């Protein structure tokens, strides 16, 4: 016997005492047919044996979906299906994982399912309630996660998380947080983050993982192995694809575009391009239903600026009535013009302070009418206020005029910002720094910034200090006698200084010892300059004693 006591049928050592092949065959022949051992038990592996529990192939009548994890749940949970009425019969609308594991798939007749599984929990589907849930989730997403979110199809949400996930500690944490939130509500969800809505849609539904994060430019690779249905195609296109044997998205990549478009339809190509990021697919965000809104549907399509302005005036009047009723003022208003060809034109205005003055709103929109492209005509216009603030009644005038009343700048600021852009209108205020170029900070146009200390400062500051050459100065604390700037020599007749400004060591390490000595000098023709010398003239580590011109006094 070999070591370990192992015994292997058919081993040569075992054959000596055993029966010969002919004897075995004789013995087997005496057995009844159903008791004869199969070839496999005789140590021969000449034929493949069918696994007794192997699922049938889909085209032989088996279910399309492979059984999902049944495991522990299957033993305790009761299978649940939701049914809907299609024509004259009830069909399964959705099935729980347990039911899916038992072979009940959506689309199956309810009677058939009842026959297959005895202990089946059957309930009516409520698609409207599901959509209402999704809408509520979308609103929650808009309010809590990202401003751009919408419902995707009947079973998903689309969030534009660009620039939003860092508020939750990164994409992974954001996904976990959303999953945990949904789990608390009793939902299971899968999340995919991708560069395009199409790719995210496909990966969330068909990748089978709870969280998928796709790096940019990986779409094609990641989608290649998914079924064509992941592309959100129409059923005709899906049937056509099945007929041509295209079952993976990757199969579409190598096909020439023109024949493919002819067979599967142009929409399919658009969907493919959208998933791969070749065609833009903007997300139309949901607007919280509380937003005040006014809508005008037009009898005839309009296209001229005058008629658009007229409709805007009417819309604003309607909107102001709503706003007055609810005590709100506009901060941001969005005008959506629906064209005949189905495309939407949008222009938005922002107010620096809540307002519901119709003249002001109309004037702000009038600045942007030229951005509306009416195309073949506009058939409906909608005015939505995504951002509003409470605004009480305003005292518009008194009999006793107040003399020193400050004018309200908000309308003027909105007007200027509407033409030049939000960023272009600003005030400058004090930043707590002695370094001249850091002492100024931009603040909003309606803030009241603080002023600067009374040190003499120039009227205009050069963007970067410009180096002076051929400087003649007494060290350590005298202004220069002469210098050359931009190739022109100057002779100094009077000077003030130095005003010593130390580097801010808490910002950069190489400012630890840096010193600038600023001088105000007047040259022969009366120009007055602001110069500085790097270094205090005594300690070499404070600077290299080079001279710069930093600003010009009047």
């Amino acid at each position, binding site marked *: 016997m070999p070591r370990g006591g192992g015994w292997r049928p058919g081993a040569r050592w075992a054959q000596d005492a055993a029966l010969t092949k002919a004897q075995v065959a004789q013995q087997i022949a005496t057995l009844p047919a159903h008791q004869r051992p199969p070839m496999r038990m005789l140590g021969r592996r000449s034929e493949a044996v069918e696994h007794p529990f192997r699922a049938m192939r889909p085209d032989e009548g088996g279910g399309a979906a492979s059984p999902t994890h049944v495991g522990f749940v299957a033993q305790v949970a009761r299978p649940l299906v939701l049914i809907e009425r299609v024509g004259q019969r009830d069909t399964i609308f959705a099935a729980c994982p347990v039911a899916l594991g038992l072979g009940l798939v959506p689309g199956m007749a309810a009677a058939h399912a009842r026959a297959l599984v005895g202990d089946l929990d059957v309930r009516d589907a409520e698609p409207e309630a599901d959509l209402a849930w999704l809408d509520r989730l979308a609103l929650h997403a808009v309010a809590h996660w990202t401003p751009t979110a919408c419902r995707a199809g009947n079973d998903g949400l689309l969030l534009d998380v660009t620039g939003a996930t860092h508020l939750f500690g990164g994409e992974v944490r954001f996904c976990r947080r959303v999953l945990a939130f949904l789990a608390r509500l009793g939902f299971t969800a899968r999340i995919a983050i991708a560069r395009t809505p199409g790719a995210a849609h496909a990966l969330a539904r068909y990748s089978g993982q709870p969280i998928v994060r796709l790096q940019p430019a990986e779409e094609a690779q990641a989608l290649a192995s998914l079924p064509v249905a992941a592309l959100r195609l129409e059923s005709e296109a899906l049937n056509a694809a099945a007929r041509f044997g295209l079952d993976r998205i990757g199969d579409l990549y190598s096909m020439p575009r023109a024949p493919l478009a002819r067979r599967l339809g142009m929409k399919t190509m658009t969907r493919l391009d959208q998933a791969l990021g070749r065609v833009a697919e903007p997300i139309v965000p949901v607007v919280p239903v509380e937003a005040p809104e006014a809508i005008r549907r037009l009898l005839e399509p309009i296209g001229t600026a005058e008629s658009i302005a007229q409709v805007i005036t009417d819309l604003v009047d309607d909107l102001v009535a709503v706003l007055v009723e609810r005590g709100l003022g506009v901060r941001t208003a969005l005008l959506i013009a629906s064209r005949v060809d189905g495309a939407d034109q949008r222009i938005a205005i922002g107010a620096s302070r809540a307002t519901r003055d119709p003249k002001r709103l109309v004037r702000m929109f009038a600045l942007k009418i030229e951005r509306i492209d009416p195309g073949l005509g506009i058939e409906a216009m909608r005015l939505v206020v995504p951002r509003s603030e409470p605004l009480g009644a305003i005292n518009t005038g008194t009999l006793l*005029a107040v*003399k*020193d*009343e*400050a*004018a*309200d*700048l908000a*309308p*003027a600021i909105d*007007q*200027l910002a509407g*033409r*030049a852009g939000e960023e*272009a*209108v*600003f*005030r*400058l*205020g*004090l930043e707590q720094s002695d370094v*001249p170029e850091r*002492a*100024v900070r931009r603040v909003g*146009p309606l803030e009241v*910034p603080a*002023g*600067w200390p009374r*040190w*003499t*400062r*120039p*009227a*205009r*500051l*050069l*963007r970067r200090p410009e180096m002076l050459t051929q400087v003649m100065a*007494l060290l350590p604390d*005298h202004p220069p*006698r002469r210098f050359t700037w931009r190739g022109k020599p100057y*002779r*100094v*007749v*009077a*000077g*003030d200084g130095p005003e010593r400004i130390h580097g801010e060591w808490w910002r950069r390490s190489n400012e630890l010892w840096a010193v600038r000595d600023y001088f*105000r*000098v*007047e*040259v*022969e*023709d*009366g*120009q*007055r*300059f602001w110069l500085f010398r790097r270094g205090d003239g005594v300690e070499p580590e404070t600077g290299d004693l080079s001279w710069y011109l930093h*600003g*010009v*006094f*009047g």
Partner: protein
Amino acid sequence: MSALSNLLSPDRARVLAELRAQVAGVEGEGRPPNVLPFGIEALDGRLAGGGLDRPAMHEVAAASPTLGDDAAATLFIAGLGARFAGRPGASAVWILTQFDLYAPGLEQSGLGPDRLLYVQARDDVMALALAEDALRDGSFAAVITEVKVADQTATRRLQLAAADRSTPLLLLRRWRRAARDPLDMPSLAATRWRIGCAPSVPLSHPGVGRACWSVDLVRQRGGKPFSLLLEACDDQGRLALPPPARLRAAAAGGAAARAA
């Protein structure tokens, strides 16, 4: 009838000024007066209305394309803006295309950060359009615009807008090329100024005295051009006459001593 014959008399300006004063008195005191005097007799006496008209456009340019003169013109216009926006709560707007102003310096000419709003335009055309918007709105006490190019149509529009809403427009014409004086082209401005740096009055001790400017009034409506030497704006935006030479302190020595 007597008023008409008075109008035809030689001292028409004086009569008109009296009539204007009477009308202003009738119109009430709530509105700011329509003329802003400098408070310097040598200047106000030579200006047609005894000061700068509020509902009008005033152009200021640097005397030469050097940065020093440019800064002097900037501060001159900042001082004017500060005095036009002198009422509490009033605010001026500064429209520009390239931002190289230094706000602490402007505050020292009277335009503090709470009284000045900046608007940065993409180009000169947009700057002029913004200026017209700001004028038509009428809630700013002064509109300051710096441009390099403004043709006659643009200046006419701005002048009309300024007159309509009684808001002064201070147009800073910056030098575009060294050889091209920005005040060469005709315009409809009520006054056109050319500001340059002048050597300051020497002090008796080392240091730089209060800055001096050579102020040229190149053109004014209803008056003659003149030129003056003035001391720069103080922190309220007020100009001053330099002291006459006999009252000046003798400089302690040569230029070398002053630079020490």
